[in-house]
């Protein structure tokens, strides 16, 4: 990889169930706080939903955005915009040539709220009541489009849609945009606003969701023997990636380096992962190779770990199979225990956590693990954050999605 430029992170932004910005989110994660609660949206009481809780935004979007902005954007774009503005300001809002600036903002599901509400309007009031911006709002690329307009990014604006791997794929794509010389900076991340009756009903029917309605904060329990499914979350995270020499030349603050990406596909099923873990394992191995490191260099993994009975076990086995005995001393965190599962936003938020873990040398805790799966082949960080070693360190963020999409990202100190 020596002939490719180094890529660093110079800006971070997020809005999610733990906090409305990076600082409060990271403090919440290190404190082992849960952002999962009984949903307060007015539609919850209107339907007989089998699941009534999720990771709802800690700070509602309407508290941050102007009303005309809210009207023009699906919630998925609203969340991305909030995160992107924080990340761009954090990067110093540099005046750079727009043709050297790109955006990659992923979504798993897109503008489901806009889509379904517009269809309700047709049925209840007729086609004349459909608003003209309905399609631009429901398109999954609309968050990327809004962010590119916001920062003036003209090098390309892209939207990976790979279910729950989307947010990590966006960062991997941004890395490659910079490495191949298409851009000097890329604003990249993922967003999701699927806390809506339709996805909840569908995921519940798949028996993929936890139904622990009486204990929302304790519902997401990755690797615990009593886990009963994932907890939906909403929100967005956005990073500013930049060619290292470009960042150094303008005196930017550097959080960490994005050192490599590995992507693979299971080619197995549209929902569950290949139980052999072969695809996940290959993504992880390719990421390490791409970063030019070995398992011995790794100190931390932010696992995909959604808290489903099947998924967590496949991932733990894949991590073990790939990292071998080195897995004995690699701290694994499952932050969805605190945030819920942001679907297309998950890989971006968890990359943000991985970057901060490397910067602060602290692996965040996994909460709600009272009884870890017996014989768990990984070293799970439970209850309290764990210090990571000094010196040069590397960490991995795993993100896997329905359809067999697998992405692993390697983060190192700059």
């Amino acid at each position: 990889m020596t002939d490719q430029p180094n890529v660093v992170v110079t800006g971070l932004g997020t809005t999610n169930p733990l906090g409305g910005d990076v600082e409060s989110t990271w403090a919440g994660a290190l404190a082992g706080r849960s952002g999962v609660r009984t949903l307060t949206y007015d539609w919850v009481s209107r339907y007989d939903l089998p699941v009534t809780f999720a990771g709802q935004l800690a700070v509602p979007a309407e508290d941050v955005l102007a009303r005309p902005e809210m009207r023009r954007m699906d919630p998925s774009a609203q969340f991305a915009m909030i995160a992107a503005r924080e990340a761009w300001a954090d990067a110093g809002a540099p005046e750079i040539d727009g043709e050297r600036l790109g955006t990659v903002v992923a979504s798993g599901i897109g503008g489901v709220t806009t889509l379904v509400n517009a269809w309700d309007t047709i049925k209840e009031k007729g086609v004349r009541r459909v608003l003209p911006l309905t399609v631009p709002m429901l398109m999954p690329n609309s968050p990327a489009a809004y962010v590119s307009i916001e920062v003036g990014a003209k090098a390309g604006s892209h939207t990976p849609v790979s279910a729950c791997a989307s947010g990590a794929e966006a960062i991997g794509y941004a890395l490659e945009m910079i490495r191949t010389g298409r851009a000097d900076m890329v604003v990249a991340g993922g967003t999701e606003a699927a806390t809506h009756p339709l996805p909840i009903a569908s995921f519940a029917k798949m028996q993929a969701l936890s139904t622990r309605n009486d204990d929302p904060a304790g519902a997401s329990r990755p690797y615990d023997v009593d886990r009963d499914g994932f907890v939906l979350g909403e929100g967005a995270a956005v990073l500013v990636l930049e060619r290292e020499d470009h960042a150094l030349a303008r005196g930017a603050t550097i959080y960490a380096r994005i050192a490599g990406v590995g992507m693979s596909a299971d080619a197995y099923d549209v929902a569950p992962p290949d139980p052999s873990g072969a695809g996940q394992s290959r993504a992880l191995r390719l990421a390490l190779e791409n970063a030019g490191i070995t398992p011995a260099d790794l100190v931390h993994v932010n696992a995909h770990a959604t808290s489903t009975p099947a998924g967590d076990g496949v991932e733990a086995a894949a991590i073990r199979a790939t990292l071998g005995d080195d897995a004995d001393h690699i701290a694994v965190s499952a932050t969805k225990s605190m945030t819920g599962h942001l679907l297309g936003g998950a890989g971006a938020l968890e990359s943000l956590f991985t970057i901060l873990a490397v910067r602060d040398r602290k692996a965040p805790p996994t909460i709600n693990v009272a009884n870890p799966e017996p014989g768990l082949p990984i070293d799970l960080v439970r209850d309290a954050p764990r210090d990571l070693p000094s010196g040069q360190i590397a960490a991995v963020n795993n993100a896997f999605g329905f359809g067999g999409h697998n992405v692993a990202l390697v983060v190192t100190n700059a």
Partner: protein
Amino acid sequence: MANSNEEILAGLAEIVNEETGLATDAVQADKSFTDDLDIDSLSMMTIVTLAEEKFEVRIPDEEVKNLTTVGDAVAFIAQAQA
């Protein structure tokens, strides 16, 4: 139910405010939607769609280009309600 011209103007001003953030008292009968209020064609179609619902009238798409000023829209809606 028919509204007075004042009621229609006030209702339109609310819709414009909701859609664009423009202060309601900026929406006066003599103002041009495009030249004075800076409303583009997509926003105009949104405002017309919301006005149809609010005032229970039909504003044909081909009529929208004739609604240059806020006063034109008030007059059209008043006539459609009559």
